[in-house]
């Protein structure tokens, strides 16, 4: 019980910060908006990209949603390095709250930001008239996936931070990782169009499963692959959170 309370408290810290100043999150919403407005609009005329019966805009909306959440999460380690550089992380780790609960709390804090992104993209989709299935349960499911996706990649980012230890290196590695993760997934085109070697990358990329699940919920309503998608995401998340809990102490040593 106590550990859960600590997890919630660490996430609450983030929510309070966003309440004081959400400028950064609004700025982060610009990039997905451009993907939809420019990339989406331009490729909307290419009919082969989207499955029959759907427009390209409909097709990439879940992909862009997943991508923007991923981008926020993968750079979360920079925040951790920052908090280490000032004494904040040290002080968090010197409280009786268990280390794993601090890490999970930080991952959940990143999810708070991810959810904010999702809300913005949903609003944008409505505004652009992109027809998605706005069934309350499906939307709730998508938010659940967003939370998990954020936790998965922010923990991964914290693991990287524990080894790289500087903000500059984290910026660098973030740039290196985001593009392959994004392009080697089904976010903006189907995996079937990829060269065979890239397909293998796409199959081990958690983002592919996330995008697939989101499309099932928001577009097709065909849930047959959702259990596999969620299974893959849960495995990846538990693994990364577990490793991050163990290695985070490297940051204060």
């Amino acid at each position: 019980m106590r550990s859960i309370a600590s997890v919630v408290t660490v996430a609450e810290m983030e929510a309070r910060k966003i309440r004081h100043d959400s400028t950064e999150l609004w700025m982060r919403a610009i990039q997905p908006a451009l993907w939809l407005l420019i990339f989406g609009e331009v490729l909307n005329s290419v009919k082969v990209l989207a499955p029959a019966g759907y427009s390209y805009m409909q097709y990439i909306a879940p992909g862009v949603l997943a991508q923007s959440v991923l981008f926020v999460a993968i750079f979360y380690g920079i925040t951790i390095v920052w908090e280490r550089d000032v004494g904040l992380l040290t002080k968090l780790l010197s409280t009786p709250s268990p280390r794993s609960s601090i890490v999970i709390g930080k991952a959940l804090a990143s999810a708070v930001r991810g959810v904010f992104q999702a809300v913005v993209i949903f609003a944008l989709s409505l505004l652009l008239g992109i027809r998605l299935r706005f069934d309350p349960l499906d939307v709730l499911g998508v938010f659940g996936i967003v939370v998990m996706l954020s936790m998965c990649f922010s923990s991964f980012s914290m693991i990287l931070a524990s080894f790289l230890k500087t903000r500059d290196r984290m910026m660098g590695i973030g740039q290196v990782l985001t593009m392959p993760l994004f392009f080697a997934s089904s976010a903006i085109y189907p995996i079937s169009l990829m060269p065979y070697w890239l397909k293998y990358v796409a199959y081990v990329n958690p983002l592919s499963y996330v995008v697939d699940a989101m499309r099932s919920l928001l577009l097709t309503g065909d849930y047959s692959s959702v259990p596999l998608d969620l299974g893959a995401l849960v495995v990846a998340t538990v693994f990364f959170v577990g490793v991050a809990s163990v290695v985070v102490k490297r940051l204060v040593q």
Partner: protein
Amino acid sequence: MKAVEVDGLTKVYGRGTRALDGIGFSVDEGEIFGLLGPNGAGKSTTIKVLTTLIRPTSGTARVFGTDVLQHPQQVRQMMGYVPQAISVDGDLTGYENLLIFSKLFYVEKSERRARIDEALEFMQLAERADDLVKHYSGGMMRRLEIAQALVNRPRILFLDEPSIGLDPFSKNEVKSRVRELNRELNMTMIVTTHDMVEADEICDRVAIMNAGRIAVVDTPTRLKESVGGDIVTVRVPPATAAVSLPPDLGRLLSSEGGEMRILTQNGEEKIPRVIALLEAREVPIESISLAKPTLDDVFIKYAGSRVDQGRYVEARSERRNFARRGR
């Protein structure tokens, strides 16, 4: 029971650096214990071991009888730690910073408000509680950091360089808060510092550290006595003949070039007698001065070198900028 007992503590970092080389000391309950030494002496490492943040390579450390290696959680529950770097969040208000930590310390919900108000009051921050911390001054941030540790009502407080980077006014304020905490709540404290004056002013006992070892542990007064007494320097006309002193007044160290140096105890009390003596011998006095030994002298005697204070100049202005830069 001792508040802190450390025995044979050694920490060797990956590249073979010996940060701690088998140190041992103990701290009584209610004491302010200073770890004094230059950069790299091992002060912060000692504190990090005691606050369970790093594991020592060998040796034992107990806080109120609890082993820091075997029961780190219990140790964390009864301590407060104020790290050297900024440990408050600039993007939250002062109140929120304390609220978050009261929750992480598992303070009962019904008790939180009272403890936070009390800590803010004690650190004289109540009026600014609802301002974002990034608008605080460096001294206020430091006081908030101490307040943050206080919401846990710790039995022992670890302060790592509490006045580093602060202007003289804020420094004094932090020092007086620390002393009050100790006196009013009988809180045991371990303070690291490279500032001799600070150690002299606030610590009951001081351990002088250098290169991972403890050179000597004692009260500041006794340490100063151990390097010798006070020196009274009297300037007289150059041609003055040597004057012999009665033994109870002190020992004449030198008398040349119009300067007499007298080694004595309680120099301030001896000055009138020196004046009377010289006037009786009709020696005109041009000036008279008194030098008391400082912990700096103690440091030179026991650690063999001067504490390097220059390296800290840079850290001073960085402190506040750091918190303000945000993310």
